[in-house]
């Protein structure tokens, strides 16, 4: 500090910290993939497990403490001491919003302070609704929004762009160019891009949501963090009590109000008080105060806890909505019969419990090496949007793979050993004899039987005479399913060579998670 010329400005440290966490996040994101052994090496779900919003919602929904999510308490504890450092230094969504600021150079400041309460109401609603049976936290949780956007849209788009480019150079470029480009492509393929091109349901929708979160900064800086983010809301509630915080400015300290101008969260009022609930410790005010008055210090009890502005009426209304909204759920047709096209990943808990725990993070869909898991739309109801479902015609569940249960941060999909996985029934295949070639046309095929992975094949065949399209009677092998052996992996549906709909289709019938419980209420 003695020679100010050489001092590294504090915001450089913060940016460094943010970049480091962001890089770590991206690293974990990329590593959420098969890496040559059945067990994943990196705890890629760690980010979700330190998210107290998701932890509380999952705990309330399940009415039990899920041990996997206990690390979230560490975040909460640190926030209690140091304030919302998490939002300013750790959260990759925050970093992304900060990093895209150049897109919105003229963002207004202090849109309207009343908007800040929105995040609290959202938080209360989510917590209460989770408890009452309508789990929705994953819709708006920043990590979930981010990972879904990246998994479903950004990563595949990057792959598509680069692969198109390198295909062009490969096919059109001279040898000397390929000598340069091909090794680059190989490295990208090995370390950055998905191993195979992937496709995802709701990809465009998810990227729009992510863009919207970033685009809200058009209204004011970090609009999402200030006003919407319920995780930010939870941290803000706790940060109000933190004994360590920034302070130093006062009504007498000068007319410049530089601190107010630089604050990305609008956390500093006219009197130059810094609100613990809003301050994310970006330290810009500390750096840019011309008088150097602002410091990060222990304030202990001297520090008055600022009000949140939550009105009692609105609070009661929010909580009431949280309790009442789930009451309409049994009025849906879903309550009588579950959608048989909704096939859950192997190890998924029974539907109600599953929905309560699933935080829509998209990790299972990211890791799925068969590209089988996709975000559901309304198949599982309004509360099931973005939860994973198996789409057999797009991808299939790889027989020996157990990755989705390993990445699920809440245990909504339980971790299975390979042998447990082999015994887990997620659905059952049936044949459409009007389409299946050996039945419908007397043409030999049974690609489905070839791929059926159970050691005692669930698809067997019998030889039968059939009249083909030329009127000749031919003997063909006709496939059929042995229900007791079929686990519903969907490889048959996936590999059936018919060009349109598959002639063998998997439905959720017989799934083991319900043990004899077909449909929600078969009565």
């Amino acid at each position, binding site marked *: 500090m003695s020679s100010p010329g050489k001092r590294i400005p504090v915001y450089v440290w913060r940016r460094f910290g943010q970049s480091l966490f962001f890089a770590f996040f991206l690293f974990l994101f990329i590593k959420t993939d098969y890496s040559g052994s059945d067990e994943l090496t990196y705890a890629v779900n760690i980010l979700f497990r330190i998210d107290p919003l998701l932890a509380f919602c999952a705990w309330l929904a399940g009415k039990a403490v899920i041990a996997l999510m206990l690390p979230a308490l560490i975040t909460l504890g640190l926030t209690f001491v140091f304030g919302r450092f998490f939002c300013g230094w750790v959260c990759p969504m925050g970093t992304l919003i900060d990093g895209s600021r150049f897109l919105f150079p003229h963002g207004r400041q202090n849109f309207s302070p009343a908007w800040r309460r929105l995040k609290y109401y959202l938080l209360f609603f989510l917590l209460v609704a989770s408890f009452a049976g309508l789990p929705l936290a994953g819709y708006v949780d920043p990590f979930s929004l981010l990972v879904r956007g990246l998994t479903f849209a950004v990563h595949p788009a990057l792959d598509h762009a680069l692969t198109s480019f390198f295909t062009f150079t490969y096919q*059109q470029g001279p040898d000397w160019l390929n000598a340069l480009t091909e090794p680059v492509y190989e490295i990208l393929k090995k370390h950055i891009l998905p191993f195979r091109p992937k496709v995802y349901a709701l990809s465009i929708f998810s990227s729009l949501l992510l863009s919207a979160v970033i685009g809200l900064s058009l209204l004011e800086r970090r609009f999402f963090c200030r006003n919407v983010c319920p995780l930010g809301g939870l941290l803000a509630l706790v940060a109000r009590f933190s004994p360590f915080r920034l302070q130093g400015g006062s009504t007498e300290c000068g007319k410049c109000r530089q601190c107010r101008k630089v604050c990305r969260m609008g956390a500093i009022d006219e009197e130059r008080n810094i609100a613990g609930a809003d301050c994310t410790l970006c330290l810009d005010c500390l750096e840019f105060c011309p008088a150097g008055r602002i410091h990060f210090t222990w304030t202990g009890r001297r520090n008055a806890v600022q009000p949140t502005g939550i009105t009692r009426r609105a609070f009661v209304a929010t909580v009431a909505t949280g309790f009442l909204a789930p009451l309409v759920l049994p009025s849906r047709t879903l309550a009588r019969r579950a959608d048989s096209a909704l096939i859950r990943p192997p190890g998924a808990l029974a539907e109600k419990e599953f929905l309560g725990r699933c935080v829509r993070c998209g990790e299972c869909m990211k890791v799925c*090496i068969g590209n089988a898991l996709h975000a559901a739309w309304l198949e599982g109801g309004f509360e099931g949007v973005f939860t994973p479902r198996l789409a057999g015609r797009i991808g299939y569940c790889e027989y*020996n793979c157990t990755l989705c249960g390993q990445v699920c941060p809440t245990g909504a999909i339980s971790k299975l050993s390979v042998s447990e996985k082999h015994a887990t029934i997620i659905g059952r295949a049936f044949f459409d004899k009007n389409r299946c070639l050996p039945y419908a046309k007397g043409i030999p095929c049974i*690609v489905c*039987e*070839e791929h059926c992975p159970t*050691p005692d094949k669930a698809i067997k065949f019998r030889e039968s005479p059939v009249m083909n399209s030329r009127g000749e009677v031919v003997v063909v092998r006709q496939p059929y399913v042995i229900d007791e052996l079929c686990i519903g992996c969907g490889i048959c549906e996936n590999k059936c*060579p018919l060009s349109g709909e598959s002639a063998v289709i998997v439905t959720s019938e017989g799934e083991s998670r319900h043990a004899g419980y077909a449909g929600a209420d078969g009565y």
Partner: protein
Amino acid sequence: MDRRQFIKDIFLWSAGASLAVPHFRILPSALAAEKPPALLSLARGEDYAALVAQVLAPLGGIENFVRPGDKVVIKPNIGWDRSPEQAANTHPLVVKALAAQALQAGAEKVLVFDRTCNEERRCYVNSGIEKAIRELDDKRVRIEHVDRRKFVPIKISRGKSLSEWEIYKDALDCDCYINVPVAKHHGLSRLTLGLKNSMGVLGGNRGSLHQNLGQNLADLATVIRPKLTVIDATRILLRSGPQGGDLKDVKKTDTLLASADPVAADAYATTLFDLKPDAIESTLAAYKMGLGEMDLDKIQVLTA
């Protein structure tokens, strides 16, 4: 047969410089003239690594197939996410020994690959083949995942059922193509052997080939021409093929077969399953097209 022109055509097509689909012309007369006496070598033993050299010896050793400076492609079956004991893929030791032999013979490049049925990485890892090839620790040998950009449409002018299909460029554009299938049961074709193993170099919707599998495989055999076929029958899958999964279905036979004649290799391998060569449609179809010998009396078996 104009192989050089053919390779040039493939190059031009995949470089986008030509729209004409490459065309591989082999005239029946050329086939007849070329047809070597159907020699087939058979070796038995438990040391699978040594068995490879042993089975090749009566055919003149690997040097008879791989010349110094050759680009070699070894095409094992790595189709399934199964372990070596489960007998769904070619035994890793056989693939490794074969690659080592090719290197010893002075190959400039040895490439190993398969277009798998299960997830590629899992198949490469759990078949043990990726590790086995890496253990050779030689820059000239590579095991690669299939690169989609490398499938080239090829005209199959002698085909009776197929007229064109996408084939992996490297399988055609090499000096020596070695086919190393594992012998096993298959629901539709009864057995999968050498000709069926060629499906691993195909692009497109391979499932649709099953609709006339025997003839399709024979048609493809007019274009995909291994110089050497080594059939891995060190252990064979008797039921629930082509994937198996239950060790009760596996029989240890400790056998390797090798032949320059792809049809003879398949024909003889069929007998290991107590079947007659003509029980396999692809063998029969290929024989009828003059692609090789199927008559066991006309195949000279050399026991190594």
